[in-house]
C-alpha cells in the first residue's frame, strides 16, 4: 500500500498532474526536492524539532468518557490536533513545506485559503522562516472570516480577495495557480490539502501522516491496542488522510470519513464529493468532483468553511473505490449538535469541521449498540482543530444573545 502513488502521481485511476505545461517543471522540481529532503536526515531532524518545540507535538489522546455516554456502548478517543500551535492540524503541513521552500532556494510562498485556517498557518510558518507570503481568499470568505484576514495581516502576510467565479475556496486555488505560473522561479505554492497536481497529494499526506503515526503508537502503548474505528472529517481530506494512513495496513481497523452534508443531500446544498460527486478533473487531479453534465464545477455548501470544497484528495477517491475506507455524510445540524455536546461534556470546543467527525462517531456508536448490544467498540476521532474561530457561526446557529445570564451588583 505504501507504494502509492505511482511515478505519475496516480492512486489507481485517480490523481495525476493536469496542469498547464508551464507548471510541470516546478512540480518535478518539488518532487525531486522532497525526495532529496526525505533522504537527508537533517531535514527530518529539523522538522521534528519544529514539531516538538514550536507546534507542541506529540499531541495527546484524550479519552472522552463524558461524550462517549451519548454514543451507545462505544468509547471515544480524541486525537488532539486542536492543541497544535495555531489550533489545527494545518501546521503539520506548512512547517514541512516551508522548510522545503527554503531548501529549494525560494523566498516567497503563496497559499489558498477558505476559512482562513490554512492561510493563517502559512502566514505563521512564513513569519517564522522569513518568507514573503501572499494568501488568496475568495471575496465571500474574506467577508465571512474578517478575523482571520486580520490574523494573517498581523503575521505579515498580504491577503488578496478573489472576486472571480464563485468567489470562494476553489476560485482562490485558481488564482494561486495563476500567480504560480507567473512567479514559479521564486515562489512555492503551499497547497493546504491533499489535492492538486502530483506531488501535492503525496507530499501533504507524508507531512500529515504524523497524526496516525503518533496516535497508532499511543493507542498501542496506553490504550490497550488498536481502535476498531478511525474516523475523521473530509473536505479536501488532509486531516483524514493523516489520521488514516498508518492504519491502512491494519485490516481490522475500519476507516470512516465524514463529508459535509450541508443542508442535506436532497437540498443540493452540500459538499459531499465522494458520496454524490462523479469522476472528473479539478485543480490538477482526477478525483470525485461535484459537477454538472457539462463538467462545470458546482458550488459546494457547508456550515464549515473548511469542508466547503467541490473536490476531494485523489487518495480518498481511491480509498473509497477500493473499499478500504468508507465515507458517510453528516449534515450541518448533526455537526452542530456534536459541536455543542463535546463542549458541554468534555470542556472542548471543537472546530465545526471536526464536529462532523464527532457526529460520525456518535452515529457509529449508536448504530453498533442497536446491532449488537454486547459490543464495546473503540473509536478514535481526529479532533482536527479547535472551535474558537467558529464562535460567530455558533452564535448565529444557537441564536445566542451574547447577553449575560444575570446581572448582579446593580
Amino acid at each position, binding site marked *: 500500500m505504501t507504494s502509492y502513488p505511482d511515478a505519475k502521481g496516480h492512486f489507481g485511476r485517480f490523481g*495525476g498532474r493536469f496542469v498547464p505545461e508551464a507548471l*510541470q517543471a516546478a512540480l518535478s522540481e518539488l518532487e525531486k526536492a522532497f525526495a532529496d529532503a526525505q533522504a537527508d536526515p537533517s531535514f527530518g531532524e529539523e522538522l521534528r524539532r519544529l514539531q516538538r518545540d514550536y507546534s507542541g507535538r506529540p499531541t495527546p489522546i484524550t479519552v472522552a468518557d463524558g461524550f462517549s455516554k451519548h454514543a451507545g456502548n462505544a468509547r471515544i478517543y480524541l486525537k488532539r490536533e486542536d492543541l497544535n500551535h495555531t489550533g489545527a492540524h494545518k501546521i503539520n503541513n506548512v512547517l514541512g513545506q516551508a522548510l522545503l521552500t527554503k531548501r529549494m532556494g525560494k523566498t516567497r510562498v503563496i497559499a489558498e485559503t477558505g476559512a482562513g485556517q490554512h492561510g493563517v498557518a502559512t502566514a505563521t510558518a512564513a513569519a517564522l522562516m522569513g518568507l514573503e507570503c501572499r494568501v488568496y481568499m475568495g471575496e465571500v470568505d474574506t467577508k465571512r472570516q474578517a478575523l482571520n484576514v486580520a490574523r494573517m495581516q498581523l503575521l505579515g502576510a498580504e491577503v488578496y480577495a478573489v472576486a472571480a467565479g464563485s468567489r470562494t475556496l476553489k476560485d482562490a486555488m485558481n488564482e494561486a495557480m495563476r500567480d504560480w505560473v507567473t512567479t514559479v522561479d521564486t515562489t512555492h505554492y503551499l497547497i493546504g490539502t491533499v489535492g492538486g497536481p502530483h506531488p501535492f497529494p503525496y507530499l501533504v499526506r507524508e507531512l500529515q501522516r504524523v497524526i496516525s503515526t503518533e496516535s497508532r503508537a499511543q493507542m498501542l502503548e496506553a490504550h490497550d491496542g488498536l481502535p476498531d474505528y478511525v474516523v475523521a472529517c473530509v473536505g479536501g481530506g488532509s486531516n483524514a488522510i493523516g489520521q488514516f494512513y498508518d492504519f491502512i495496513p491494519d485490516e481490522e481497523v475500519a476507516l470512516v470519513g465524514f463529508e459535509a452534508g450541508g443542508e442535506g443531500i436532497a437540498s443540493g446544498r452540500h459538499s459531499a464529493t465522494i458520496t454524490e460527486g462523479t469522476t472528473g478533473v479539478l485543480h490538477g487531479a482526477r478525483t470525485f468532483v461535484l*459537477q454538472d453534465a457539462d463538467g462545470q464545477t458546482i458550488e459546494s455548501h457547508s456550515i464549515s468553511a473548511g469542508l466547503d470544497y467541490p473536490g476531494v484528495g485523489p487518495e480518498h477517491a481511491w480509498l473509497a473505490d477500493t473499499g478500504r475506507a468508507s465515507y458517510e455524510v453528516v449534515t450541518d445540524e448533526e455537526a452542530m449538535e456534536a459541536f455543542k455536546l463535546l463542549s458541554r461534556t468534555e470542556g472542548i470546543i471543537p472546530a465545526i469541521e471536526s464536529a462532523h467527525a464527532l457526529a460520525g462517531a456518535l452515529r457509529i456508536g449508536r448504530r453498533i449498540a442497536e446491532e449488537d448490544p454486547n459490543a464495546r467498540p473503540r473509536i478514535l476521532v481526529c479532533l482536527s482543530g479547535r472551535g474558537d474561530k467558529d464562535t460567530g457561526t455558533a452564535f448565529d446557529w444557537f441564536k445566542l444573545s451574547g447577553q449575560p445570564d444575570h446581572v448582579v451588583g446593580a
Partner: protein
Amino acid sequence: MSQFDSAERLGRSGQVVARCLDEGRPAFVGYYSVGFPGVDASLEAMKAIVEGDEGRGADIVEIGMPYSDPLMDGLVIQRANTKALARGVHTKHALQAVEAVARLGAMPMVMTYWNVIEAYGVDAFARDLAAAGGGGVITPDLPADDCPEWIEATDKHGTDRIFLIAPSSSEERLRMTMQASRGWVYATSVMGVTGARAQTSDAGPVIVERARKADPTIPVGIGLGVSNGDQAAEIGSYADLVIVGSALISCMKSDGNDMATDLSALRRLSGEIASGVERSRA
C-alpha cells in the same frame, strides 16, 4: 513549399498552416469564447474575426469553450467565460460554433479544459468535433504523457491534438509533447496566463527555436500577449502561427448591447492582425 511536408504529422489544421507558409506568411489564429455575450452573438463575432474589415481575417478560429475553473486564463477571458456560463452556454454550442466557422471556410478548432471533454465523453468529443468539421482540440491542462484515451480517440477520428509547451519545459518534455501533438504545437511565450501585453516577450524566439530543434516536423504557434498588428508582424517573423485571444474579446465592450459597434471594432482588429501577419515576412 514550406518545410512541413508530412501529411500525417500536419493532420487537418497543420495543412492550413503549411498553405499559409507557402503563401509566404504565418497563419493567424483568432481565439473567441462561444457564448459571449450570448451564443448567437458569439457566432457573429467569430464571423467578424474570419472576415476582418477588408475580407482578410483569421485562418483558424480557436473556439474557446468556457469552463468554471480556467487556470490558464487571465481576467479578460475569465470574465467573458463566466458570463457565457451564467447565460447558459453548453458544450454542444462549441460544436455548433465549429460547424458555423467551417461554413465560413476557416479552420475551426476548440480550446477547452480537460474536464469538459471528459464529461462529454472522450471518444464522443473527438468524433463529434470531426463530424462538425473541426480540425482539432487545444488542451491547455492535459499532460501529453498521461492521456492514452485521448490519443486513441483522436487517432480514431482523425482529430488534431494541440498540446502546450512553455519556456520552462525541459528538452525532453519539448520533444515528448511535440511528438504527441498532431497539427502544430502551441508555445506559450511568457510564463503567465492569457491576456494582452504591451510588449512581446523576448522568450518567444527562444522557445520557437528550441521547439524546431526538438521536433522539426510540425509548425510552432506563439500565443499569450499579442494585441495588435505590429506585435503580430513581429511574432510572425519567426513563428508559424500567431495566436490572438484576449485582445479580440476586449473588442466586445458593450456586453451585447451595441453589437454593431463591437463587431466593427472586432473586424478592424482582426483585419489589422491579418495585415500584420501578411507583412511579417515581407
